[in-house]
């Protein structure tokens, strides 16, 4: 475990690059869900469907020769289109219908991927599709530029996170202050460590172009999407979404076309998850229908709830916590029990963590405590 924190061994760096990319990609995926549930109150239990559509569309299109920069937006738009279909059939009905239909659709999409082999290659999987920047051989200057870009991203993220924690510290009780201070201190150190790892990986780009390229592209994408979402949820448009989450009858009474906004939220969330699907496929480098089990949806829910629903920064932090947990429990695989039992154990423990969190800090790590004491 200490290796993760201090070693600069290439193997460790490679694994950490994988972890950072996973955080970015699951963060992206969960940001989509957070828009739908955290901001709009839409119950989407089939988020993985959007990811499936994004992953298959992007990889199949790029195999057919479509450039990645075109294939990804098309994949994301197809995912958004799926959101449109799901929304049109259910959003006028009571809210539980959406929950049921999304579960159904996500399984349906996976079964289509499994059975329509002429299109999706079925259980055989989509293989050896192009990866972003895999043939890119940057010069020293370009590599330094890339390092500068991710330095800016990490710097901004840590600064914002630091400020948030600072706000939380003010007005907290003494022992809470200490916990938050220690926690955020460790988090910042961890952030610096991850930044250092990313910088080294990008500087040694050739050591593993596909993985390092994916790291770079995923960090930039998640940063852009985060920025765009923050801007949206703070705009009057986002205010309508939040109003719908709180009480859609009020939104209607004030002249808002609730149905249209729900549709937009579902589609945009789907669009973002579609992009995440492309990254998911690239990280796996082979896409099988079994990659898109309902479990993936629930990972997004766990991530969002851990960090605090209705909070984009919290969602990203949740992705970080989730993957830190996954990395730390990897050592459990050395225990003398079967692999699937280890898997079950990990899920049990994360369930336990969620339960403790719900008791101690039900609003999530970055959520706002005051909101919980409010009457309806």
């Amino acid at each position, binding site marked *: 475990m200490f290796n993760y924190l201090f070693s600069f061994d290439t193997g460790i760096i490679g694994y950490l690059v994988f972890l950072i990319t996973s955080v970015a990609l699951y963060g992206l995926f969960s940001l989509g869900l957070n828009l739908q549930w955290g901001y709009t109150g839409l119950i989407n239990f089939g988020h993985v469907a959007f990811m499936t559509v994004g992953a298959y569309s992007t990889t199949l299109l790029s195999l057919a020769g479509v450039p990645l920069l075109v294939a990804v937006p098309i994949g994301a738009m197809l995912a958004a289109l799926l959101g449109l279909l799901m929304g049109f059939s259910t959003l006028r009905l009571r809210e539980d219908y959406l929950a049921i239909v999304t579960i159904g659709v996500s399984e349906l999409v996976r079964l289509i991927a499994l059975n329509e082999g002429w299109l999706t290659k079925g259980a055989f999987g989509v293989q050896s599709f192009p990866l972003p920047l895999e043939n890119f051989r940057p010069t020293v200057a370009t590599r330094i530029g890339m390092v500068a870009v991710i330095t800016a991203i990490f710097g901004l993220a840590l600064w914002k996170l630091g400020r948030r924690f600072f706000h939380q510290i003010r007005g907290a009780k003494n022992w809470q202050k200490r916990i938050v201070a220690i926690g955020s201190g460790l988090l910042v150190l961890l952030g610096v460590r991850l930044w250092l790892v990313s910088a080294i990986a990008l500087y040694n780009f050739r050591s593993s172009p596909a993985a390092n390229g994916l790291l770079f592209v995923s960090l930039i994408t998640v940063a852009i999407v985060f920025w765009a979402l923050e801007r949206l949820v703070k*705009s009057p*448009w986002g205010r309508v979404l939040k109003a719908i989450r709180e*009480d859609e009858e*009020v939104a*209607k009474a004030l*002249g808002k076309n609730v149905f249209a906004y729900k549709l937009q939220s579902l589609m945009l969330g789907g669009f973002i998850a579609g992009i995440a699907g492309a990254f998911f496929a690239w990280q796996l480098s082979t896409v099988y229908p079994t990659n898109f089990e309902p479990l993936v949806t629930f990972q997004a829910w766990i991530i969002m709830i851990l960090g605090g629903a209705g909070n984009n920064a919290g969602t990203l932090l949740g992705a970080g916590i989730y993957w830190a947990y996954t990395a730390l429990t990897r050592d459990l695989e050395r225990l003398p029990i079967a692999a699937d039992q280890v898997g079950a154990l990990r899920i049990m423990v994360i369930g336990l963590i969620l339960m403790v969190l719900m008791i101690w800090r039900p609003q999530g790590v970055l959520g706002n405590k005051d909101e919980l004491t409010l009457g309806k």
Partner: protein
Amino acid sequence: MTDLSKSPMPVLSATGLMKSFGGVKAVNDASIEVAQGSITGLIGPNGAGKTTLFNLLSNFIEPDQGRVLFDGEPIERLRPYQIAQRGMTRTFQVARVLSRLSVMDNMLLAAQQQTGEKFWSTWFLPGRIAQEERDARDRALEILESVGLAAKANDYAGALSGGQRKLLEISRALMTRPKLILLDEPAAGVNPTLIKQICEYITYWNRQGLTFLVIEHNMDVIMSICDRVWVLAEGKNLAEGTPTEIQTNSQVLEAYLGK
């Protein structure tokens, strides 16, 4: 109050409204008319169908039958949000605030025709949106100040007391710049001093040109602010007239006090 300069043309007129829930005929062939510029009262015993009538007028519940004309045009086919956009804003009997939004955000949400509420404008018209937000904020503060909620502007709406929620609900409705406001029991659960204040606000805004349709059980309120009163009982029209006429109507007294 009654003012001869106001035109008698009805801003809202509904006829033959019907709604049953299962076997219960909540609204049974009811009609109502609200004159432009008036404060019209709607009274009746508990369960008379007043709230249901509001729901039918604003199409929150679709009527089984009946016609609703607003500003001379039929609106019974419009969605509730479209009716609100046309200038008829309803409030709820039990105040509904958006808890996890600030009081100010509750108000800002109510502003109509906001450029910033369109997804693409957020990206292409930031200057215009910022300007509209500033204007809306000024207006919202003005209204909040007039009801004594300005100090709470940045608090969560969910942290307001019952009476304050009622005030926010009315203020928010005003923020939509409606032609007609439907108030469902604005004085319920509000202390007597505040009731007087609410009455004053209503007459004040009425003088500014707003038309009101008010459901209320508090007869003092009805008598002091209304130009005309409609009485509903068991889903049917029972009487209609000036407050004094209604006060002395034997049928009305019977409906309220029993035989």
